[in-house]
């Protein structure tokens, strides 16, 4: 008798709960949660102190800068600044700040002090926050900024050491997003775990290696976002990510494996968003012309050449380098290993950028020509060399091991015996920066849509510093450097473009890098997701996204609950 009563009670309670659930499902104030399947966790949540795509992806939805990209382009529009003007000598840019913009979590209004703090902490060693971060990107791209000055509460000026035509696009980057000085004071070194910005979403929680939750910021200066909660869920395995999407556990995923493109295209419940990516994957041939820069001023310490550990003697001959370029069948690699989701590369930067040289045809696949070049260079029987490939898939090299194996086979065709080598990704980056490789696969995804961000960072002699090299081909070319320097002082877009086109030609001729491909950027979403605008820099902004309501959810819950009730009743009966 007692058990019977219990059973009835249990059923009653459950049915009541159930009714509650179903009722809530239909209520208008339903919380919209958007879950994004990321390939890795963020490292830090301080926009000025991150370099990896995963961290940037979170930051971009929490923070905002003075200016921002206009939709899916790399053109600039106003954001926290309403307008700006450039002085005649092009060395001072004055910004008027938007009034009344609030920081998250009640940290007050954005003022010139916050702007100055956000910049000064990265370059001014007397700033109280300077020693709390590494500020890597500042060194990469902002060293031309001399200082940032507060003119009044809503006005700041950026003073430049020299004119730099790429600075406005750089100002739309995450590195110079505005953070709250008050929050930095409150959290100190732990700011990176408690970010406070002005963006559409505010930070809620971070469960390491699992997820980061953000929620809509009610006092956002534009209309609040249409999703109430934005969750970044970490799913490292590409297959697992796709399965999570198919199961509806996440609403969107990044870094879609090229092999999965057809599955997504053929699934009516999914949509694929693709774009020619702003990236390049290349093989650097170590020519050994690095330099040491102990005092880190970007100049040689002495005029002498230094030993680059991995420098490979045959690569001193441009004919050998060109032979390698001729020997690799890029089209086959693009067709079969990128599944066609890429463009074969013939120069060092992607075609979406201005300054891309359409006249360059690159080195066509021609094994006979490669053999002839090798013979002319004195290597009729080829040689042995080690090719480094990364252990993780990157946007520009989705399947690096397979690509390396394909290149190995191509080079074997012309008599070059290639041994493959790989190591832990972090160590790989360090070792290639230190020039320990002979041939290494690496690549780059553009930050700001400026050619300088490719040509200067990856191929210039100034960046051939052993130990922190961006140019891991270690080839010095003063003429190339000179063109880049001149381009930075030229504000006329066409003139600048012409200079970069010349530079691209020089780079291809010297052949210190063999360019493989520019991979498409692929994202997949449920077809109920709308409004996402893909960005060429791979940055992800979820502000415009909205999710269609699913009708079946209530019924699903009902079904599961009924099963539960049934199960409980059965269990009690058995007793």
């Amino acid at each position, binding site marked *: 008798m007692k058990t019977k009563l219990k059973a009835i009670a249990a059923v009653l309670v459950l049915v009541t709960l159930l009714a509650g659930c179903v009722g809530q499902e239909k209520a208008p104030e339903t919380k919209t949660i958007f879950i994004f399947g990321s390939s890795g966790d963020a490292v830090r949540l301080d926009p000025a102190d991150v370099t990896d795509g995963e961290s940037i992806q979170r930051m971009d939805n929490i923070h905002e800068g003075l200016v921002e990209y206009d939709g899916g382009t790399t053109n600039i529009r106003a954001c926290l600044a309403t307008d700006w003007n450039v002085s005649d000598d092009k060395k001072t840019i004055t910004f008027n700040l938007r009034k009344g913009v609030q920081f998250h979590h009640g940290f007050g209004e954005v003022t010139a002090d916050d702007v100055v703090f956000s910049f000064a902490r990265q370059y001014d060693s007397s700033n109280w926050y300077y020693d709390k971060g590494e500020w890597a990107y500042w060194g990469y791209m902002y060293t031309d900024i001399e200082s940032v000055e507060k003119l009044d509460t809503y006005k700041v000026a950026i003073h430049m050491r020299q004119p730099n035509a790429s600075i406005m696009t750089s100002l739309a980057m995450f590195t110079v997003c505005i953070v709250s000085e008050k929050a930095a004071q409150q959290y100190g070194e732990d700011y990176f775990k408690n970010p406070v910005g002005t963006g559409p979403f505010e930070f809620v929680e971070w469960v390491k290696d699992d997820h980061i939750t953000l929620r809509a910021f009610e006092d956002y200066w534009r209309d609040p976002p249409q999703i109430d909660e934005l969750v970044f869920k970490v799913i490292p395995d590409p297959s697992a990510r796709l399965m999570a999407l198919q199961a509806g556990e996440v609403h969107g995923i990044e870094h879609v*494996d090229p092999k999965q493109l057809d*599955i997504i295209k053929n699934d009516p419940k999914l949509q694929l968003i693709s774009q020619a990516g702003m990236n390049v994957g290349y093989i650097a041939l170590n020519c050994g012309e690095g330099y040491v820069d102990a005092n880190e001023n970007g100049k040689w310490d002495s005029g002498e050449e230094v030993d680059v550990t991995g420098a490979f003697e045959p690569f001193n001959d441009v004919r050998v380098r060109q032979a390698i370029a001729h020997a690799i*069948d890029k089209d086959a690699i693009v067709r079969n290993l990128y599944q066609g989701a890429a463009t074969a590369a013939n120069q060092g930067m992607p075609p979406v950028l201005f300054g891309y040289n359409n006249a360059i045809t690159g080195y066509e696949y021609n094994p006979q020509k490669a053999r002839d070049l090798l013979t002319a260079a004195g290597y009729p029987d080829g040689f042995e060399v080690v090719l480094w490939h990364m252990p993780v898939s990157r946007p520009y090299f989705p399947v690096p091991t397979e690509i390396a194996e394909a290149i190995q*086979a191509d080079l074997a065709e012309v008599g070059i015996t290639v041994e*493959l080598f790989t*190591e832990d990704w972090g160590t790989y980056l360090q070792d290639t920066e230190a020039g320990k490789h002979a041939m290494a696969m690496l690549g780059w995804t553009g930050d700001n849509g400026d050619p300088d961000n490719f040509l200067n960072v990856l191929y210039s002699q100034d960046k051939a510093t052993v130990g922190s090299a961006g140019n891991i081909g270690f080839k010095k070319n003063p003429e190339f450097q000179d063109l880049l320097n001149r381009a930075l002082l030229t504000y006329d877009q066409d003139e600048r473009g012409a200079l970069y086109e010349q530079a691209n030609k020089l780079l291809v001729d010297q052949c210190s890098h063999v360019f493989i491909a520019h991979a498409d950027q692929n994202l997949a979403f449920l077809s109920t997701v709308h409004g996402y605008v893909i960005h060429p820099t791979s940055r992800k902004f979820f502000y415009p996204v909205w999710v269609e309501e699913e009708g079946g959810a209530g019924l699903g819950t009902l079904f599961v609950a009924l099963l539960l009730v049934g199960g409980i009743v059965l269990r009690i009966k058995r007793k």
Partner: protein
Amino acid sequence: MAEEEIKRRTRIQDVTRQMRKNKSAMFGLGLLFIIVTLSVGAPLFAPHDPHDVDLDRQLKPGFWSDDGLPGFYLGTDALGRDLLSRLFYGGRVTLSVGFVALGFAVGMGILMGISAGYFGGAVDNVVMRIVDILFAYPALLLALVVAGTLGRGIDKAMLAIGIVYTPQMARVVRGAVLSIKETEYIEAEHAIGSSTWRIIFKHVLPNSLAPIIVYSTLMLATAILDAAALGFLGVGAQAPSPEWGLALSLSRKYLVTGAWWAATFPGIAILLSVISLNLLGDGLRDALDPRLKGGAKL
């Protein structure tokens, strides 16, 4: 007829007879024989060069499908290489890692086990504490740490697995030595003044062979599994080696895209070799050392 019954059977004949009766053991032996033959004779049996890359015939199915290419019986992998040929050549790598690692473990294990078991006292204490320390870690984790420290590569994987299995072998040998040491014939040897070396090599070692052989066979199975696991985790064999674990690891991403064969066949190869060794090992245990039946813990 009577003569035959009286005829004294040697130990080996005895074991062979027992093994013949054991069907599953014979099945294991046969399977192992086939696997080893195909691997060792890979250049003879493989229909294609295992390193012959042709991107335009990538991930083609095998005999079961009309889309398959003639001559590529199990299909091709992501780089268009013949899967069957790669399995044969991969067997050479995977099996040799297993055998070399096992050889190392047996050699070191006998050395450690005999010195600990026979000499006892302080030697026993020191050796067995080292063994205990190594035992404290899960085998694969220890192998990963060792391989990680030594660096990537097949030779390092061999050494890593060898080190991991040494303590197990040392324990087995020590146990055997301890019991043999107490027997009367050893006492007799002592009495007639035989040298220590003579006692060890003439009596102790030959008499401990039974458990060593049994455990070696079973250990070989797990060593092969570990070799594949290290390859899978990226610290063992390196591309473009056709090693089974590596092949499995690199091809598993094609499982969801429908090209199931690229990962499935290396997996089956690992499975079959492990099963064959386990069946053989069980049979050998029954035949050689019935006391061990019921499973002494490794």
